């Protein structure tokens, strides 16, 4: 099976003043369709830099990056923008929604920059469908400041999904959320993954990584460990456990 992501000896060097920072030093790995990967590592391990390269926000200094068979490491700014628009859905730690813009309009945004002509009515319909998928159809008219963190992240996921990308990238998606909401978000990811979407996620929380299928651990710009998740957590049952525990607490009080 062809890999969605094929990284061949990826290096990234930043030139900041006189010092060269070697953030990624030779990463080679394949990610197949339908995988659910967590990239882990301490801060400064190069995981975010690698994520930016995978997300086509940045180009490697050296090495080849094949995304869906196309070499993304040599493309220009506009071509990269098109790839981000068509093939990748990006989810950020800080949600990065446009403020003072309704959830629905935020979700419609990627279609605006797409190349296929979509009539306004169809754009709306697709945005509503994407919001429905993350369980937020009833909040379509709300602005980000009227939504909770978990809801904002769901809007961001809907936005990432609206152009039907083959790859979903998430950079610390649960970093700003409490543990229960984090599990809810992981539940959304697990559901999407079951539908066949490839997900790559950066996190430094071990328990969050256990909801994925494969863990890559980075240190000093290299992958030091690449293991499948053996005792995988299921978000739905974890949430049920959590609720039971809370009820128990309430009963004893």
């Amino acid at each position, binding site marked *: 099976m062809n890999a969605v992501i094929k990284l061949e000896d990826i290096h990234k060097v930043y030139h900041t003043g006189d010092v060269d920072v070697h953030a990624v030093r030779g990463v080679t790995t394949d990610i197949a369709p339908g995988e659910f990967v967590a990239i882990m590592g301490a801060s400064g391990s190069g995981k975010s830099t690698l994520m930016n390269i995978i997300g086509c926000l940045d180009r490697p200094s050296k090495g080849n990056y094949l995304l869906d068979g196309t070499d993304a490491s040599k493309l220009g700014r506009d071509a990269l*923008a098109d790839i981000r*628009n068509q093939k990748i859905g990006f989810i950020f730690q800080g949600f990065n929604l446009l403020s003072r813009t309704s959830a629905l309009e935020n979700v419609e945004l*990627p279609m*605006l920059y797409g190349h296929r002509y979509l009539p306004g009515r169809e754009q709306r319909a697709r945005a509503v469908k994407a919001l429905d998928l993350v369980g937020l159809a009833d909040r379509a008219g709300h602005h980000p400041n009227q939504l909770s963190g978990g809801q904002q992240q769901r809007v961001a996921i809907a936005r990432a999904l609206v152009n039907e990308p083959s790859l979903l990238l998430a950079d610390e998606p649960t970093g700003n959320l409490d543990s229960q909401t984090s599990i809810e978000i992981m539940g959304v990811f697990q559901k999407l993954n079951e539908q066949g979407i490839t997900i790559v996620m950066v996190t430094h929380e071990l328990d969050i990584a256990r909801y994925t299928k494969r863990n890559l651990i980075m240190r000093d710009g290299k992958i030091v460990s690449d293991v499948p998740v053996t005792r995988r957590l299921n978000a739905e049952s974890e949430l049920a456990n959590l609720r039971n525990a809370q009820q128990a607490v309430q009963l004893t009080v």
Partner: protein
Amino acid sequence: MMRILATVKIALRALRRNKLRTLLTMLGMIIGVGAVIAMVSIGNGAKAQIEAQIASMGQNVVLVFSGSFSRGGARSGWGGAGTLTIDDSEAIQREIPGVVAISPESRTRAQIAAGNQNWNTSIQGEATEYFDIRQWPIVQGAAFTPQDVRNANKVAVIGKTVADQLFPGEDPIGQIIRIKNVPFIIVGMLSSKGLSVQGQDQDDLIIIPFTSAMKRVQRVTTLGSIIVQAAKPSLLSPVQDQITELLRQRHHITPGKDDDFTVRNQQEIAEMATAQSKTMTALLLGVAVISLVVGGIGIMNIMLVSVTERTREIGIRMAIGARGRDILLQFLVEAITLGVLGGIIGIGVGILASKTVAAQKGWPALIPPEWILYAFLFSAAVGIFFGFYPARKASRLDPIDALRYE
């Protein structure tokens, strides 16, 4: 296309969000464009009025004044020296091609009386052609005839003001007026011309044959001035030059000596009259253009602030697939909208201002449509010119840096 429309929509929404800021940014354009429109239309109104008054002098007129500015010692003023003669006038008519009509003039002011009324007015001795040259119709009675001129008859044509002063509610035709105690019979009354460029009452005069004026009223043998009409506007300058040459010859003025007469053509007089208003208009236009540039810089300033403020938004848009040119277009449209909207409001303000001034001054408010177009295009150009740099800056941001921007 779809993409452009959507981008325009985004830009407009961003402007609507900061209404006060948008308005303040546009203020420079509003004032600048408003000033340009107001200045141009006020200037045009003034010019139109002056031109109408100049035209009332007659068509293609060259004026020859006796006496000269540049006589040493005491100066007598135009017409005072009495250097022109009837022979000069006849020579001009005879020898200069392109002269279609000529009227020798002898002017003075005098106290006049009729019945028990009296009035001080201007007495103009003219030829019959004068009424044609100045295109001044006679509304009652008739003009005096060439024969009246030859015989120095005591006949007069009076202006509306004189008629009103001396014969209120009466028919002036056939009445006798006494000019310096010489009785003249009124044969005609002129139509009203109203005020001149300088604000003088042009109807306050009596016109008599120039021969009568010289012989019976002023008792002089020389003319004060001569009005010459050329066949067409292009002949004004050649006729003027030929008159100068002819008169120098006739007056035996050797080369290097000053003329003892002055020749002016209508264009010069018109130019003199409009020069002042032109200078003023040019000055104010300069101020208006400066304020447009200042307005443009205001737009650039706000756009730069806006780009910095919205760095994160730009990062988000880029992360989800906006190309550099989408971002460029978005900010450029904002800048152009600021310019154009300011321009449109400015055009409205300018029209309002010029109408107000025109109403006060009694001018026609002449707003040339092409200037409205210029103002509109110029404000769009200001938007593009001053909006391009900030927009380009936005479009060249690195998506990662932009996303990290706090």
